[in-house]
């Protein structure tokens, strides 16, 4: 993760307010935030990317999971200032450049992997990172990938199916090579071929 010092430090524009830059879903963003502003609040309320949800504010439910430099991170446990300079992917950035659903998103639709949809963005980002690491999970490994996210609606049955289905869709689309590239480049969609 890019630290402040690597970026040459964060500018304190006025007392208690800091200017940070983020690359969110491929687009550069400049934001002025108080030091205590959570990354989740910054994404949701400053950048109005409300797909990232907050379910517990203590890092247990996983609804707020985003990818920071390709790694899945609970954005409610990270201060926005510490993400300065980072590449962030939220649920809004998972779709393919042409607007079609990503394999993971499509798999959730195919398998009825969501009901109320509130926890779903955190599952989608978590599984996206999980499949980048393990493109061919067994059912047990699929359960492991989602083992840190809470869902109150689905009993997880169809989410596990969706993980397996997403892996299948990725294989079908011949995405293995692309997955390798995106992992290398930090797993943002625009880093793909």
């Amino acid at each position: 993760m890019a630290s402040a010092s690597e970026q040459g430090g964060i500018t304190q524009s006025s007392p208690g307010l800091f200017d940070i830059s983020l690359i969110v879903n491929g687009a550069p963003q400049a934001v002025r935030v108080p030091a205590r502003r959570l990354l989740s609040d910054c994404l949701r309320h400053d950048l109005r990317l409300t797909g990232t949800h907050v379910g517990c504010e203590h890092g247990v439910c996983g609804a707020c999971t985003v990818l920071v430099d390709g790694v899945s991170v609970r954005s409610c446990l990270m201060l926005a200032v510490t993400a300065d300079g980072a590449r962030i992917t939220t649920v809004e950035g998972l779709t393919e450049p042409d607007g079609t659903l990503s394999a993971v998103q499509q798999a959730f639709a195919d398998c009825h992997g969501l009901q109320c949809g509130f926890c779903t963005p955190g599952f989608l980002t978590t599984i996206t990172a999980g499949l980048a690491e393990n493109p061919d999970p067994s059912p047990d490994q699929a359960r492991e990938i989602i083992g840190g996210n809470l869902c109150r609606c689905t009993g997880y049955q169809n989410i596990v199916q969706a993980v397996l289905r997403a892996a299948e869709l990725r294989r079908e689309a011949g995405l293995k090579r692309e997955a390798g590239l995106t992992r290398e480049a930090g797993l943002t969609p625009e880093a793909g071929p």
Partner: protein
Amino acid sequence: MTAMFGEPIARLEDDRLLRGNGAYLDDLGHDALAAAFVRSPHAHARVLGVDVADALDVDGLVAIYTYEDLPGRIAEPLPLLIPHPALTHGRTGYPLASDEVNYVGEPVVMVIARDRYLAEDAAERIMVDYEPLPAVVGVDAALAAEHLVHPDVPGNVAGHLVQSNGDAAAAIAAAPRTLELHLYIERSASTPLEGRGVLARWDTESRRLRIWTSTQTSTGVRAAVAAKLELDLADVDVITPDVGGGFGVKIVHPWPEEVLVPWAARLLRQPVKFTEDRIEHFVASAHERGQRHQVRVGFDDDGRLLGLDVRFWHDNGAYIPYGLIVPIITSTQLLGPYKPGAYRVEFSSLYTNTVIVTPYRGAGRPQGVFVMERTMDAIAAALGLDRTVVRERNFIQPDEMPYDQGLIFQDGRPLIYDSGDYPAVLARLKALAGWDGFEAERAAAAEQGRRLGIGLACYVEGTGVGPYEGAHVVVETSGKVKVATGLTTQGQGHQTVFAQIVADELGVPIGDIEVVTGDTRAFGYAVGTFASRAAVMSGSAVALAARAARAKAIRVAAAALEASPDDLEITGGIVQIKGDPESGIAIGTVAVLSNPLRYAFDEAAQAATQFAGGDIGKPPVADGDEPGIEGREYFSPLRSTFASGMHAVVVETDPLTAEIRIVRYCVVHDCGRLINPRIVEGQIHGGVAQGVGGALYERMAYDETGQLQNASFMDFLMPYVSEVPAGIEIDHLETPSPLNPLGIKGAGEAGVIPGAAVFAAAIEDAEGIAITSMPISPSDLFELRLSRRGDRAV
């Protein structure tokens, strides 16, 4: 065109939600002021004073309100939503506490600031002076009544109800065999991933209030807030945005925040938003399930019930805004699929200094089923009979339907089961779970040092309670069909299932149908989403409204085609002479023709203008007719319709650590005709997971002073994927309901209902120790093993 009803189609709502384009409460109103609350840290205390001085210099502070600031009806107690003659001492809280607080989490001060961070800064600096009072925590303390929650409520008893059918005492006294059981269930809670939240905007020019709230009843909130703010209903819109789960807790209304936030928005003439955080949801929303039960049962040597006498004590928390609904449901639904012989049930609903208790998915049924099924297992054990045999002998038979249990149900109507085939459900469950082959399975496992047990539990669930729901269907001139119903959606897939119904009834492609729920601007008359009623109530209303729209379209098209209406059909959005596509008119064109116009605004409209034709001897709109292809209908059934089901679970208990592992979980479910099997199975999956949570993990760990010790997801153990079965085996029976036009029954709650009962049975079977209290953790089981060993030593 293929029928849509019954097809497991993918959901229409998913695309938006998967792209992150859902709009949940806190996704709205970014520029609104934020509300935060100072909440009581004491379970029971007098409020002596509030000192806000330190908070006043917080940057961004807009306003601070205490009880003293509340005017008129807002200063009165919140409504008692469901009064009942047996609820003799109903008490509700104030939007902000006046001179006493009755649970940790009760709101005392509201702070409004530029954002939530600043509002919390100010809230932290507000000093409230309390004089702590003794706290009443748990059923036993409430019953002992050494201290009172409300000084004017003797014995802490909010309400007391007795129902009976026959002379249970005499039947038990005369019975060849009797048993007495003492059974207890702990508190749990709905715990949706999204908490409560409300956003309000007062339009100073039109003098109208608009409220967005994460609710299960937008019309309920509208009526309640209009009454509190002394506004006409017509001046209040309530919109339910996407809701991140409900499971019962969001049927309560108005929450203190739902009154205060709109009031402040009007007063400040600025939008105000409250978003509940997780700890607030634990301590300031609602819980359910805490009940202690005492059962006396008389039966014959074959295990047939002769008399059943149940007394129980229900912990309703600090206030009782939702009335006696939960214990009434327990007291009636515990009978399940059985003929109890003579039956008497008596309960008291007791105040405690804890969070209020209101329905959580299942709503009193998990307790009732636990009581009845533990009783069935105890009878089987006493007689040395197979547990399924005892149940079979007591089942209501299909030819006895409709079956009158001789009691009054939660909707104030007789408890009459409309249809069901319980022997068939049991036969399927035995096959699915491998009941008859289980002893061999157990023996094989035992040889490897593994300890297995199997349990089953049966339930009957009254669903689709009244009084009514309505729906509106309108065909646009584009051919698109707009459907609106007033009840709300929290993930049940209503847009999909209602569209499936309309597609079939109206004969239009499903992709042309758009469904709106929970928006009082689109449909103003509604009750709400609870009691597994949405598909039955709104589904039926939607079907009726679509039929009305279809009849109108046929009538208008018949005139245009100079054909008899009986010769027409609608298929694929085309009205045509049966079997003759050449004759067809698009339904959108029929909508154009149905509305005689003076002004043509496009080519389609030209067809409907006054010079386009028509009989000049008749008025353009005939007497009693109206323009447009629309249907608006209401569905109001005579009684609830009764779904049923049975679950079986095989568990493995670790002989050393007492860990409880689920080997397999089987469900046979009968909710009448299935609109969308995929969605019904999803509902069952989620219910089963909540049943697992309630049986094995979730409890509200109150200490004796009324502090909730586990008010976080770190400590309240909601199941992750690792806690739920890797597969849930499901079989359906479809016994149609005669009480609604689609033959459907509710499915939303069923999965959770037998949870505590079925796990208790399986663990008891594995361990040979009576399980009488749920949930049960490995530590609890370990203690039970130790105490049994102790008993043996004595």
